């Protein structure tokens, strides 16, 4: 028997849609307050990372990889989307405490709007990647047309699942936030972003798919770097994405009714 029964207070579908719309719009407005500058800031950080790694690995350590800057760019931008989404997840519900305490609304929409927002940034930064592709003598291929939407969807599902888990759990176990910081640092170096797959020693190659992020980032990178769509790795990412989404939804469902008590 359900303990609470609310009759006649259903939100319309239109409200859900509008809710998502204004939440995404809000973040974008706040972020791009001054339009040009806002855009520059949002691509500055991945570009700065790329410069640092270029200096460290190409100029100092003299790693010999073809088109290294392009490789960096095509890995770092998708990684930024992933890392920023995951990194801001733990504080999501916590940061909306007044809302969660007072208003009955589908809280599941908060992580979704955050992630959509990061996705929009990523899409807006595609021209920068394209620019680098041109600089290194490449051009967009047909694979981009199918590859980009599919990878966007897979990426979105994966970060949504992870974000649901982290944002829900962090209300109950507040040090998840710290843990995420540490774990993400590991994941970054275990994911082929600043090095090509071929440089990974033979005996470790088989372990690449064990890192849920690696197949996704590799798929993105090959798409931009070689113009090819890696079906195998995309399929693995999709499986991971489904698993995370299921887990995230499960955790959210189990815990969401207690959010207002613990925020």
């Amino acid at each position, binding site marked *: *028997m359900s*303990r*609470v*029964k*609310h*009759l*006649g*207070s259903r*939100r*319309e579908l*239109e*409200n859900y849609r*509008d*809710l998502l*719309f*204004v*939440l995404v719009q*809000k973040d974008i*407005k*706040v972020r791009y*307050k001054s339009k040009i500058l806002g855009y520059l800031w949002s691509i500055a950080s991945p570009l700065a990372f790329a410069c640092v790694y270029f200096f460290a690995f190409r100029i100092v350590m003299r790693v010999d990889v073809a088109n290294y800057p392009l490789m960096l760019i095509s890995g770092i931008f998708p990684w930024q989307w992933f890392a920023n989404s995951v990194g801001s997840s733990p504080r999501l519900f916590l940061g*909306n405490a*007044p*809302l*969660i*305490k*007072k*208003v*009955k*609304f589908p809280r599941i929409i908060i992580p979704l709007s955050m992630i959509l927002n990061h996705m929009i940034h990523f899409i807006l930064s595609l021209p920068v990647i394209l620019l680098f592709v041109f600089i290194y003598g490449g051009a967009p291929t047909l694979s981009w047309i199918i590859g980009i939407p599919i990878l966007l969807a897979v990426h979105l599902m994966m970060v949504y699942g992870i974000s649901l888990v982290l944002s829900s759990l962090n209300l*109950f*176990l*507040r*040090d*998840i936030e710290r*843990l995420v910081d540490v774990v993400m640092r590991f994941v970054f170096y275990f994911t082929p972003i600043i090095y090509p797959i071929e440089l990974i020693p033979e005996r470790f190659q088989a372990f690449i798919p064990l890192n849920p992020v690696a197949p996704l980032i590799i798929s993105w990178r090959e798409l931009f770097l070689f113009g090819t769509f890696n079906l195998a790795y995309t399929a693995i990412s999709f499986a991971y994405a489904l698993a995370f989404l299921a887990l995230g939804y499960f955790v959210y469902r189990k815990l969401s*009714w*207690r959010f*207002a*008590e*613990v925020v």
Partner: protein
Amino acid sequence: MREPVISFDNVSKHYPLYTNVRGIKNVLFNFPRNLRAMRSQRFEALRDISFDVYRGEKFGIIGRNGAGKSTTLGLIAGVLRPNEGRVVVRGRISPLLALGAGFNPELSGRENIVLNGILMGLTRREVLSKLDEIIDFSELGDFINHPIRIYSSGMLARLGFSVVAHLDPEILLIDEVLGVGDIKFQQKCLDKMMAFKESGITMVLVSHSISSVISICDRAMWIEDHTVKMVGHPYEIAAQYCKAAGVEVDLGDIPQNVEFSSS
């Protein structure tokens, strides 16, 4: 034709008090002890309360700080779930009147009205059609186009109340908000309350202002020690409450139509 729109049926609500299980570290290192602690350490905010609010009624709730009034409203609003018993609500409900829950300091007053209205369950179209009316009501003048981080707290309250006053719900929940604006706006809020009183809307009002409970409500409930102490005519409840608190409050003249009867 007395039809209950809100029914509480032997409702109990307790909050977890697991202050010491708030992190992964603790869970891992003293798990069994904590699990036991978690079960035993809980705080009973409401014990076995039952009451009905009928359609069109203005229902007041009074009681000391920490008695469980906001918890009761949270249960009605559906942000909290009872641990025992059953809460049934029939009708479209306003959120717990939460001034400024969901406001974003960087957005202008106008943008916040739209955001807030949608969060509270309206569609974008509905909010936009009421926008001018809401802005007029708030009397914020040019400030409506400025980011709300520069507002004073009274101005914020005006903005929040203006949105809620135009939500047009069937059941209105109000938790202690009447005393924030300046006297003119307080009067305006009171007038709006009175307008609500005239309309057929059902209202649940939590307030420490005994006089507004008396002037607005048809019936009042006194919560003491997490249970219902008395339900009855607001004047009588208020008198008993003041006596118990040892405070002399001038309750004004006894209204003509009072027949003292406790229920």
